[in-house]
């Protein structure tokens, strides 16, 4: 099974930190026609407390990384479901 197929229905997250940063990321992804949602991350995902993430389909991971990098948006970490990767 290819990675793309394996992650087809899996949710990935870019952990952004602040809500505004997550909203900026969502706006940049929307402009690239990549659906995403802003969520507050599970407490376990950050030892620093509340953080905000952008969720997207894992098969878009490469595109998301590219879009966010082009937009100059800092990502604290990446996760798939609850796993940091």
């Amino acid at each position, binding site marked *: 099974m290819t990675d793309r197929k394996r992650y087809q229905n899996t949710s990935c997250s870019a952990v952004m930190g*602040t*809500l*505004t*940063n997550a909203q*900026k990321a969502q706006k940049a992804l929307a402009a690239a026609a990549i659906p995403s949602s802003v*969520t507050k991350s599970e407490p376990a995902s950050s030892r620093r*407390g*509340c953080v905000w993430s952008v969720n997207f389909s894992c098969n878009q991971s490469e595109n998301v990384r590219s879009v966010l990098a082009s937009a100059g948006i800092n990502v604290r970490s990446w996760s798939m479901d609850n796993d940091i990767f």
Partner: protein
Amino acid sequence: MIYFDNAATTFPKPAAVAEEVKKCMQSYGGNPGRGAHSLSLAAAKKVFECRSEIADMFGASDTDRVFFTPNTTYGINAVLKGLIRDGDHVLISDMEHNAVWRPVHKMAAEGRITYDVFPTLTCSARQTPERICANISRLLRPNTRLVFCTHASNICSAVMPVTQIGELCRRRGVLFATDGAQAAGHEHINIREMNIDALCIPGHKGLYGPQGSGAVVLGEGIILDTLTEGGNGVDSLEPEMSLTAPERYEAGTVSTPAIAGLCEGIRAVRHTGIDTISQGERQICARLYEMLGNMRGVRLYAPEYSGKGSIVLFNFDGIPSERVASLLDENGVCVRGGYHCAALAHKTLGTPEGGAVRLSAGMFTKQSEADALYRILKRVSRDLK
């Protein structure tokens, strides 16, 4: 009722502003950036919309360069106290509002900083951008950290040469902040093109938002020390505020209804167009200058700026300005007398003890209201004699 106190706060507001405030309070007013439920996220979406509008309107490099404040004064305090360090020297103009003068004066009185007031030559025939910049240059010291200047006066229609001052500050390695209380929505402002490191704006004046809304727009790379600390929905287990803007500067719950209304106010201003709004206000004020100039016993201040802004300042000879304002109120006209919280500026203009009467037009002011005001003033002037 005739309203000529738009420099204090614009009135009325566009219908969309009131409708959005109501909608926020009744349909989506969760606490933005706190919970993850639908109402909290909906509120956060509206706050982000407004942040984006402000960033776009004022040329910020990014939405995270905009943080919300309850008013301009708070923003000015946040910038001054967030940028200035002990031992610094600061320059402010002789047209500043107390929102700038008082915090700077307090820091100086505490022995933490020193400051000088640079002459803007307001009302002088010698006033040019070059001479104002020369006055600033003369007062710069090796430890001058910040020049703070009002963009547009709150007591007359004088507008400062912000672009030239910004260029000078950039060249000399000094930070430059502006008080945009009377300029936002009246003048085109682009912080990048004007080399402004921090712009403080109100929501409730020329941007037609509700009272309780305001913002600071920061230049790229500017990081302020925090004025207030507390919850902001980010890194909640940490004892310190995170460095990441804008949440770094927004401790405590922001006023979502005010911000929601401000978003619509900005859209209304941008839809109508700053040039269209300003042109209408200037025509009305130029007409007022002309009419009042022909009235016996009226002393007009700063007539040099007639037709250049939305403010007219005057006195009746020998009559306290507050008495004139009170009589106008009794005749259904809202104006403001006194000092307009701008002691430095009144001193610069040479207004007498007791200040002056200020008329200020807005987007909804009609020429017919200016004519009616003139007729009322003529009647009132007879009562004053």
